[in-house]
Structure formats: structure tokens, C-alpha cells
């Protein structure tokens, strides 16, 4: 890259916060998608003002800018697909305030999700969104992808907790959206527009977050079913019974088999599906809720139940879920993890459709995920080194998306579009909707410098 540009960047953020060293370019060339694109320069700005100057310069010079949090994205949102500047939010990692009276907090985008959760829990408050990556992903990345997690069935996703933002627009203006209040209808809801915009419509520099009181206690149960339908009907029955558990995670037979094989964990052979159910709230209430849930599911082909009575036992149950990812590698080395979402009641149909696809292409597909909200992680397992496998996987994935859409679902519940799903967008969105989105992007970013080529193909 032109030395003149490097010097401008150095003037904006300081010499130490700009790097063009090959080692750094390599280190900021990937995310959890495992694809690689080398940037030309990496910058570490300290605040909105610096970002504003960077974006103004980038517009003048027509250099693309790629915002990056922790680089844990699954769809390539932070990848510098066209060289240019990777803009890392790592230095903007301060929790600015936690207001216990109004139940709000304000943070910078580089704060790691779990650090924030721990900080609010210390004062008896609660930030529910819990992506499995919460120990390392950033809140900025969570807002940009609208991340979700197991607790979403009861508590909703990231966007449900964002009251307002400070954003640097693609052309370098600093704006504030939303605010501190629980209500607010003045102007368009730009806060929601930014949620899930994957760094294409602006760079988030401050986040105002809504908090809840921390539930007093939780109770975890593991229920094994003899059929996937039983488990699915259990989900509907529990919610029909007017209980909304904090989490309702499920694993299919192939997943159970993987865990059993990889870890030697004792799980009955007759189990075709597992539900991990957790309720939270006031302590006295939980015992009754747990009993009621067990009664509701009893007639639905329960093979075995385990109820945790201590935090340690609860941890043992969650361990089953956490062992899933590592044990998948035993099936095949390469995993394509898609996170389709269908209406809750159609989960069994979706699983059957996936099973049929797996059989037809003769590749293992492992399903687990958030049954409570219909968000299923479909893992197509292949060995890329075997010729033809990649093509099979691509074909299977397209068929999986089609099946999800047919059932009234979506091809991504949490992970976003980025580059990996961009080609499939026309399957889900009609041309007019795509045109509407493109109009927004073009109006806000006429030079197409902010995260170009992501979400919408240009």
C-alpha cells in the first residue's frame, strides 16, 4: 500500500497502532470460516473520532475497510476479501458504565461478551444473550451479527437488548441511534437496522444495553427420548404447558453416537434424541416447574431423565452438550456448520429432510442446536482431501437451505451471511427485497468502501 496512506493512518491512530508487517497481515487474514485473505494494512483505533477520520480518508482514496472484532465469525464477515484496511476494535474494550437504577449499561464494541456478563452479574444484573463463543467474541461483533444462543428461547437475541448505539457511518459521520429509554419512536429505528448489518452499514463505537435482574437460581435436566418426534413434541408440549424454559437444547441420534464414541460417556443405545432443559427464576418455583416438565414429557417416549440438584451436577449435564463439537472431528476432519432455523413445530420434518439428504449423498450430517426456537446446527461432515467430497457437501448444503425455506424457515438463525452465504441470498429473499437493501447500502456507502461484497453481492 502507498506509503502516503500509511503515514496518514499513522497520524490518525499513532505509529504503534498501524502495521503492515507480514506477520500481522497473516494474523488478520482469517476468521473461524478458515478462509484466508491478506489485508494490506491493519489499524487499531482508539475511538469514534479516529474511526471517522479513517473512513473519510478511505472514501477519498477509495480504499476498502473491514471491521473486525474477535474474528470468531462463521461466515467471513471480517475477512479482508479485497485487501485494504482491517480495522480491529480490540483497543475499544471499556465498560463505560453500569446503571443499576435504570438497568442499562454502556460499553465499547471491543468488550468480550463474557467479561461484560460477569461485570453485570456482580451487581445482580443479567445480560442474557449467550452465543457459544461468549468467552472470546466481542459485543460489537455480537451486535453486528445479531448473535443468539441457548437462552434465546426465553430471552431473545442480541438485538432485543440494544437500546442505542454510537455509529460511525460509512462516510465518516458520527451518529447516535436510539437512546437510554425503554421506549423511543422518534425517527426510523436505525438501532435495529444496525443489528445484524455485519459491518456493512456503519462501525459501531458505543453500545447502550438493556439489562434484566439476575434470576435467583437455575435447574438443569437431561431427558433422553426414543424418537426425534417425541423430543420435538416435548418441546411444543412444554411451551404449550405455559412454561418457557431458559434453554431447550437438543441433540439427534448421530450426535449422541459421536459423543458416546468419542468420550465413552454412558448414554443408552435406545436414545434417539436428547433434550437439555434448563429453567431459571425464583428458587421455590423451580422445583415445581421441573416436576411439571417431567410430567409433561413422560408420555412422549422418555428413555431416561437426569435432574441436576447441585451446580456441579448441572455442569455435568452441560458437559454433554459441550463435548459435541470436539467429538465431531472423529466423524470426519472437515465440518460445514450451517445454522438454519425453522418454526419450532417443524423441527422433526427438518431433521427428516436432513437425514434424507445425508443418505442420498452418503455423507454424515450431524444435527444439534436450539430446539426451543427451531434453530438447528446442521453439520455436514466431510474430508476435503477426498476428491468429490467438497462438491457433495456444497450440493447437500444447498438442498438443506431449500428444505428449511420450504418449511417456512431461514438459512441462518445466528451466524449471518458474510461471504459464505451471500450466493444463496436469492433463494431466500425476493428480488425486490434485495433491491431495497441494495438501495440502502448504496445510499449510505456510495463508494462501497465499508465491508464491500458482504451480505449482498455487488
Amino acid at each position, binding site marked *: 500500500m502507498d506509503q502516503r496512506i500509511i503515514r496518514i493512518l499513522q497520524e490518525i491512530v499513532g505509529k504503534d497502532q498501524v502495521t503492515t*508487517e*507480514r*506477520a*500481522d497481515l*497473516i*494474523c*488478520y*487474514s*482469517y*476468521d*473461524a*470460516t*478458515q478462509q484466508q485473505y491478506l489485508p494490506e494494512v491493519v489499524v487499531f483505533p482508539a475511538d469514534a473520532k479516529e474511526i471517522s477520520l479513517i473512513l473519510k480518508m478511505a472514501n477519498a482514496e477509495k480504499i476498502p475497510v473491514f471491521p473486525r472484532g*474477535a*474474528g*470468531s465469525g462463521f461466515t467471513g464477515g471480517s475477512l479482508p476479501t479485497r485487501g485494504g484496511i482491517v480495522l480491529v476494535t*480490540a*483497543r475499544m*474494550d471499556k465498560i463505560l458504565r453500569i446503571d443499576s437504577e435504570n438497568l442499562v449499561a454502556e460499553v465499547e464494541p*471491543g468488550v*468480550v461478551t*463474557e467479561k461484560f456478563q460477569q461485570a453485570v452479574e456482580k451487581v445482580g444484573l443479567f445480560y442474557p444473550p449467550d452465543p457459544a*463463543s461468549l*468467552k*472470546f*467474541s466481542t459485543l460489537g461483533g455480537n451486535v453486528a451479527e445479531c448473535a443468539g444462543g441457548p437462552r434465546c428461547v426465553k430471552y431473545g437475541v442480541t438485538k432485543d437488548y440494544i437500546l442505542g448505539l454510537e455509529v460511525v457511518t460509512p462516510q465518516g459521520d458520527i451518529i447516535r441511534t436510539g437512546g437510554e429509554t425503554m421506549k423511543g419512536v422518534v425517527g426510523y429505528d436505525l438501532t435495529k437496522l444496525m443489528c445484524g448489518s455485519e459491518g456493512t452499514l456503519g462501525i459501531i463505537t458505543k453500545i447502550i444495553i438493556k439489562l434484566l435482574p439476575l434470576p435467583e437460581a437455575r435447574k438443569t435436566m437431561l431427558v433422553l427420548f426414543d424418537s426425534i418426534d417425541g423430543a420435538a413434541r416435548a418441546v411444543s408440549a412444554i411451551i404449550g404447558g405455559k412454561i418457557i424454559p431458559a434453554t431447550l437444547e437438543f441433540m439427534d441420534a448421530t450426535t449422541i453416537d459421536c459423543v458416546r464414541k468419542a468420550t465413552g460417556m454412558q448414554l443408552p443405545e435406545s436414545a434417539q434424541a436428547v433434550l437439555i432443559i434448563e429453567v431459571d427464576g425464583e428458587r421455590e418455583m423451580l422445583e415445581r416447574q421441573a416436576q411439571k416438565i417431567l410430567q409433561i414429557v413422560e408420555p412422549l417416549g422418555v428413555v431416561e431423565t437426569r435432574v441436576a440438584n447441585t451446580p456441579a451436577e448441572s455442569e455435568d449435564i452441560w458437559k454433554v452438550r459441550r463435548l459435541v*463439537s*470436539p467429538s465431531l*472431528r472423529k466423524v470426519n476432519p472437515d*465440518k460445514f456448520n450451517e445454522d438454519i432455523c425453522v418454526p419450532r413445530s417443524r423441527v422433526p420434518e427438518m431433521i427428516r429432510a436432513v437425514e434424507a439428504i445425508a443418505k442420498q449423498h452418503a455423507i454424515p450430517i450431524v444435527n444439534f442446536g436450539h430446539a426451543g426456537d427451531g434453530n438447528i446446527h446442521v453439520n455436514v461432515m466431510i474430508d476435503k482431501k477426498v476428491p468429490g467430497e467438497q462438491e457433495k457437501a456444497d450440493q447437500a448444503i444447498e438442498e438443506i437451505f431449500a428444505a428449511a425455506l420450504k418449511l417456512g424457515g431461514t438459512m441462518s438463525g445466528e451466524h449471518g451471511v458474510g461471504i459464505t452465504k451471500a450466493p444463496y441470498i436469492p433463494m431466500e429473499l425476493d428480488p425486490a427485497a434485495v433491491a431495497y437493501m441494495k438501495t440502502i447500502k448504496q445510499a449510505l456507502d456510495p463508494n462501497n468502501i465499508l465491508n464491500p461484497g458482504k451480505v449482498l453481492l455487488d
Partner: protein
Amino acid sequence: MAKHKKLEDYRDQIEQCVKCGACQAHCPVFGEHKRESIVARGKVALAHALLNDEVKLDERLVEDMSKCLLCASCFDKCPNLVPTDEIVAAARREITEKQGLSSFGKVLTTVLKHPRLMNGLAKSGKAFSSLLFKKVPEQSGLRLRFPAPFVSRERSIPEIAAQPFRESHPEVIPGAEGKPTVSFFTGCMINYMYPEIGEALLKILKFMGVTVIIPQDQGCCGLPAISAGDGATVEELSRRNLAALSRHRVDAVLTACATCNEGIGRHFRHLEGDYATLAEKVVDMNVFLVRQGLDRLLAELPRKEVFQRVTYHDPCHLRTQGITKEPRALLKALPGVRFIEMEGADRCCGLGGTFSVYHYDTSKLIGARKAPGIEQSGADLVATACPGCMMQLQDTINHAGLKPRVIHLLELIARDLPA
């Protein structure tokens, strides 16, 4: 012959990294400097680039590879079990070999040109200029850990003992009939700096009737040399320790230093053959004592009225092997101790072999993260199971101006045993 793996031998494991980024949550160095080249994922990417000739072995890479504590915290939590610590060690060996120098530290000092490092001897610097230090063999890890002119003046370091531990004892100390026989691998820090830890272990083993063998020809465990990328020394030390520890038939080889446990345990397992067979016998003293039922024996002793509040720090080299319950079981059983868990007990102390010599400022920052937990616990003593951690924790406590003293868990047990 014990042969080290080359970086190339790790290619498969390097390619197992799926770039998930989970290691960002566990790398202590990354916690202080949030640059991707520091975290395991970045190190692995750089190692891969090195194998594929996409980066040069230049000064920048030397510096990147130096910023690792070899604590294996990343490996412990990596869903794909990528051994970044070993990969970094292999990269360091590659660097020293290519540069034709004996240690990575020498390469590094030419790269870092760190004015701080030239500040002269450490606070208790007389330890190093004294005649006593001359007794420490050339190959001892202590010389790598404290390369005299480079140790920061600010660091507090224990004195060198007037008489090394091993010289104070016969090779065989018989115990009772029908009780196990063990050899004691002392390591350098216990031998030269903290002989009282060795004395404590002997007292406990005597109480339990265990026969103890202290092979006089054992050497340094080799971990500081591994950290320093000095492949030749590691190989020589490994050979020597294998010979020394194979001369007697024993039920177990005990270590009272977490680092040594890694050095002759996990490291030997990787060398395979006779080394791996010996490694099967290597047992951390916490595990051994609990297996022998010492916690139950201690719990039966009458409780003392005057007690001390004690908390525990998990040395990385035990924690990543899952040894966390045993030391706590022993502490909780002690009649003169009230055990308190502290927040962040599992955080790395920040010493990391030769890391703290060349990156003392970062090492101090990592260490300082322990201070609030120690303070809030209200403990009188911080117990741990590794002399290296002891030194670093005491340094942290001194810098933070806190009251508690650091002590080896064995000293507490020895103190509370019936006369």
C-alpha cells in the same frame, strides 16, 4: 537417542487448528496485549506460514515466538487439541539452530535490544554474583532463568542455599517394610533455592513410611532449556535424567515442582521408548499423597484452635493435567489451616520459563491480575505446588504491597504433622 520433533513434524497438528479463536479467552499473554500474533491461533498461523515459506525467520518472528509462556492453557481448552506450546518450542529450536546460537535467549537479546534488560543484577543480585551461584551447574535451568546481567533489578528472587538439598542427604533413605519406594526428582529450584521444600517432603514421606531415593546424578528437568529453544541441552539432560532415574526400581518418581513434572512427565512421554515408560511413573506429589490416603489421615488429626487462612494458586503445569482437586483436598484436611478459594486461582502467574526474563513488564502485568483475588480472599498464606510460581507470586505480592506470604503446600503439611 532422544530426538526432538521438528516444526515440520507438527504440520498435521498445526493444520488441525480451525481458527475458532477460543484460545483468545485463555492465553494470559493475549490478555495483556490483544494482538493476534500473540494468541495461540496467531502463533499456529505463523508456524504454518513458516513451514510454507510464507514468512521469513526474521527478527519479528523471533519476537512473536518469544511471547509465549509455554503454559499450555490454550492446549487445555482447544477443541482440536492443538499443542501450541510445543509448536512454539519447536519453532524456537528451529530459530536457535538456524542462527547457530546456543539459546533462544541469545537470539532474543540481539533482537530486543531492551534497555531494561541491561539494568544489571536483580535486587537480591548478590545471589548471582556470590560464590554460591558458582555451584549451580552450567546446564541448570537456573542459569537460563536468571541469565545474570539480564534479570530486572526490580525482581525479588530467593537466595541461593548455602548447601544444595541433594548434598545434604544420602541417596537412599529407608522407610517401613511394605510401604512404597519412590525416587524424588528435586529439580533445580528446590535443590539450590528452596531446600526447605525438599526437607518438608522428606518429613512427610518418613511419616508415611515411604522409602525415598534421591538419585544424586539427576540434573535439571530441561524445561527452561526447552523454553530457550536449546535442543542440544534438552537432549543431554533428558539422557542424563533417564539414566539417573532408571538405576533404582521404584513405584513412583515424585516431583514437588509443577514445571519439573512437565519436564520429565509430559515431555518424556513425547520422546517415546524408555522415556515414555519412565514418564508413566512420574507422579506429582499431591497426587501421590492423596493416593496414599494422606488427606484422610490429616483429616483425623485434632483441629488446631489457632489456624491460618490459606488459599491456593493452580500452577499451569498441574492445572492443564487436571491436577486441581488433590492439592485442595490436602489443604482442606490440614488441622491448622482454613482453606479459602480465591478468585482467579487458575490464572497463570506469568513466569513462563524464560518469558519473564525477556518480557518482565508483561510478566508483571499478568502476575498483577492475581493480586485482587489474593487480597480479597483475606488469606494469610498463598500455597502452591511449584517453586517457580512461588517466586513469581511473591514478586507480585511485593509489588502490590500485600500482606500474605507464599508457601509451598508441602511445608504446611510438614508443619501440621504430629511430632
